[in-house]
Structure formats: C-alpha cells, structure tokens
C-alpha cells in the first residue's frame, strides 16, 4: 500500500488527550456513569470504546459495559463495498433502557452510523443512542452528527483519513493520505 502521507493530524498524545476529554464529556452529559454503555464498531471503534470505559473507571471508579458491533449485515452498499471478513457482534448486556454511546474512529458519510443504529435496534431498545468519534472529517450524506468529537478535521472528499491505534496497528496516529477515493 503506497499512499503518500499528507499530514499527521493527531499524534499519540493528542489521541490520549482527546479520549480523556470525550470521557469527561460523556460523563457530564449523562450526569455520571449510571446506565451508560459503550458499543464500538469493529475494528477500531471497538478499541476506542474499550479505552473510553477504562478512562471512566479511572475518573469515576465506575464499570461501564462495553460491546462490539459488526455492521456488515446492515450496510446499504452490499453490491459495491462487500465485506467478506465479518466479525462477531458481542453485546454481553441488555441494551434496553441504557444510554448507548456508539463509538467509531472516523465519521464520514454517516452511512456506517445509520447501519449501526439499525443493528442496535435489533438487539433491544436503548433509552438513547449517542455518538462518539475520534475524528469527524465532514462530507455527511445523511442527517447524522456526532455528540462527542475528538477532533474535527476538514478534508477533501478525495482524501483518506486513517486512524492508527496501538492495539490494531502498532502505533498511535491519525493520518491523512492524499488523492485517493474516500474512505470510512
């Protein structure tokens, strides 16, 4: 994969700070950790969800349940962007009545989030769904916005935004690559 790097918009420290702030914002808006749940969209959203739960444990000493969601079966672009590598959805708690914070790495067109909300609804009836993303890069195609944003990154729709995390990629950075078809 030879893509020319355009810019590193977040480094490891910036990612850490953003997550800590988002964790505080989630607690503030929910007035504590009561009734919260994090659901990360595979793969990197799941990692971020785990980290947000750890932050909340450090801040409030409270355990927030964490689940992972694979939205392959809910996509609206099966014919063009088919994902054969389906991973398991794992929601080891009852969603009903909880305030579910969906977590993803990059918010782009909003289609992934639409699919994720449809998937969540099949598992139960959360009292509310909030959205937390590490990067919001704009170019929405659906009326969807994030409640908690690590960083807003203005991009052109031809660029690619890639989040690298230690757990999945061995390093921590948010990078923009130039002149490619849109992603995420």
């Amino acid at each position: 994969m030879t893509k020319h790097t355009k810019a590193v918009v977040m480094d490891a420290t910036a990612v850490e700070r953003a997550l800590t702030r988002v964790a505080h914002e989630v607690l503030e808006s929910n007035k504590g950790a009561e009734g919260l749940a994090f659901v990360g969209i595979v793969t990197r959203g799941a990692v971020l969800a785990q980290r947000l739960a750890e932050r909340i444990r450090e801040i409030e000493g409270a355990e927030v349940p964490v689940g992972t969601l694979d939205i392959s079966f809910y996509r609206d672009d099966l014919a063009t962007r088919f994902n054969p590598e389906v991973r398991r959805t794992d929601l080891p708690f009852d969603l009903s009545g909880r305030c579910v914070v969906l977590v993803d790495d990059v918010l782009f067109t909003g289609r992934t989030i639409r699919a994720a909300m449809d998937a969540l609804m099949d598992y139960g009836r959360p009292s509310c769904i909030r959205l937390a993303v590490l990067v919001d890069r704009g170019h929405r195609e659906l009326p969807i916005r994030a409640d908690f944003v690590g960083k807003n990154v203005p991009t052109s729709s031809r660029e690619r935004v890639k989040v690298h995390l230690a757990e999945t990629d061995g390093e921590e950075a948010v990078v923009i690559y130039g002149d490619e078809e849109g992603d995420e």
Partner: protein
Amino acid sequence: MLSSKHILSMDDLNSDDIARILETAESFAEVNERRIKKLPTLRGLTIVNLFLEPSTRTRMSFEIAAKRLSADGVNFTASSSATVKGESLRDTAATLSAMNCDLVIVRHKYAGAPRMLTEMMDCPIVNGGDGLHQHPTQALLDLYTMKRALGHLEGLKVGIVGDISHSRVAGSLIPALRKVGATPIVIAPPTLLPSRPDVLGAEVAWDLDEVLPELDVAYMLRIQMERADGMPFPSLREYARLYGMNAARMARMKPEAIVMHPGPMNRGVEISADVADSERSFVLAQVESGVAVRMAVMYLLLGGGDSGVAA
C-alpha cells in the same frame, strides 16, 4: 466473496472458501439466537427454491435462511408447478431467468441438473442435492457442526457409515473433509460401496467395530428404504446389528466422539433411539447449523456485485 460464482459441488470451493463460509456462519448463528432473527442484508433480492424432488428440511432450511436475510424467497416445487404438466428443466430455467431472480437453489433427481442450469441462467446456482452426485451445503453444515462440537477439523477421523454408493451426502462430505485436513473413512458392506471404492478418496472399512475406537465422528447415513430395487442386504435387522449405531457401540468410541446423521433418521436401523436422543448425538445441532451455514452461503454468493464474483 468466494472463488466460484456457483456452488455445485465441493470442487467449487477451496479450503479458504470453506473457512470463510464457516466463519461467516458463526456470525449468523449469533443472529439466530436473538429475539429478532432478521437482518436487512439481502433486502430486495429474490431467491428461488427450485425443488424438483421431495424435500422438507433442506427446503425449509434454505427458506428460513432467505427470510432471515430479508430476501424474498419463492418456492417452486415439483408437485405444484408446471413440471407436472411436462415443462422441461430448460423451459423452467428460462422462465425463472425472465423473472430476474438473483439466486437459485436447485434440488433435482438427476446429477448434473444444477450445472445445466448454470448454462441457461445468469445468476448464481446452489446445488441443494442432485441425484446421487452431491449435496454441498449439507457437507458445509456438517463441517460447521463438527468444528463447533470438537473445536477443530484438521486431523479428525470421520467414519461415514451406510449406503455410500447411493449417498450424495457422502459424495460431498468426503471431499469436504479432505479439503479441511480431516480423514474420511467409509464403512459399509461391499454391496453398499461403489464397485471402485478407491476412487472415493476415502479409506475403506467393512467392519464398523474394528474402526470404532479411532473415530472422532460417527456419521450415520440413512438407509433409503423407499428405494425401488430393494436393499442389498438380507434384512434391516442384520444391517442394524452390523452397522447400526447403538449404546454399546457408542460406549466403545472415544469419550469425546460424537454421532451425526443427516436426517431423516430411521430409528432402530442405522441409529438406535437412545443414541439419537443422547447428548452425544448432534443431529439437531446439524439442523440448527444448516440455517446459519445457508445464510453464509447466500451472503457470500450475493455480496460484491451482480455476478457474485469478486473482481
């Protein structure tokens, strides 16, 4: 996304395809445990069950799989269709083509009928059992069940017991086991084996009791009592005594070994009632796996564009 557009026999699938189908089926199995067992994945697509030979469980399994994926399933069965009025398979295929269906599951009494359909239709074709040839989705769900029950497939010794020469289940299961690194052993009296059993690609044994202690899976085939030419052994009682699975035989198997049967069972013939209902019998697990595996097959054949084959 599989290496083949159709699944007509196990020859169409390589070991990567098989691994992918089994993995995807695991995700679908989770859906089948939910209260809402429906996904929007194949919304708007039409799947035709072209069953020109009697079948209840396979047809139902495909039908449920299609419904859970939100595809529109249409049943075309022999007794209630124009085939009774003498329509040829070619004309039936042309009719289905004209209706723009997206996937056809076909069961037919003649081997090769699914392959013939591929020449007449543009959509992917899945063989739901053709004559004495193959029944690939059965083999896939059997692999899935074995993997779930025993944790792995490689190195397993699977004894396939019964009417090998008339079994399309064995026809698919033997190559399927070989592709995943397991060892198939066919166990039957010579009259139930093809004249050249060596071409099956399986080890051959005549005496069930001799190989029993080595087996990880005892796969009991159905004795097809409805066969017109009678059964090539003296009596059902003798068959049951020599080749039937019963509690005494099960006790001589490895403690973790399991018993499987593609159904419908002849209790008291190839499998005794107490074994069929025991916790080492995975017959119902096989039925349950069938839906998830068939959902995976549909998903992987219909994903990635009209052709179903990745660029």
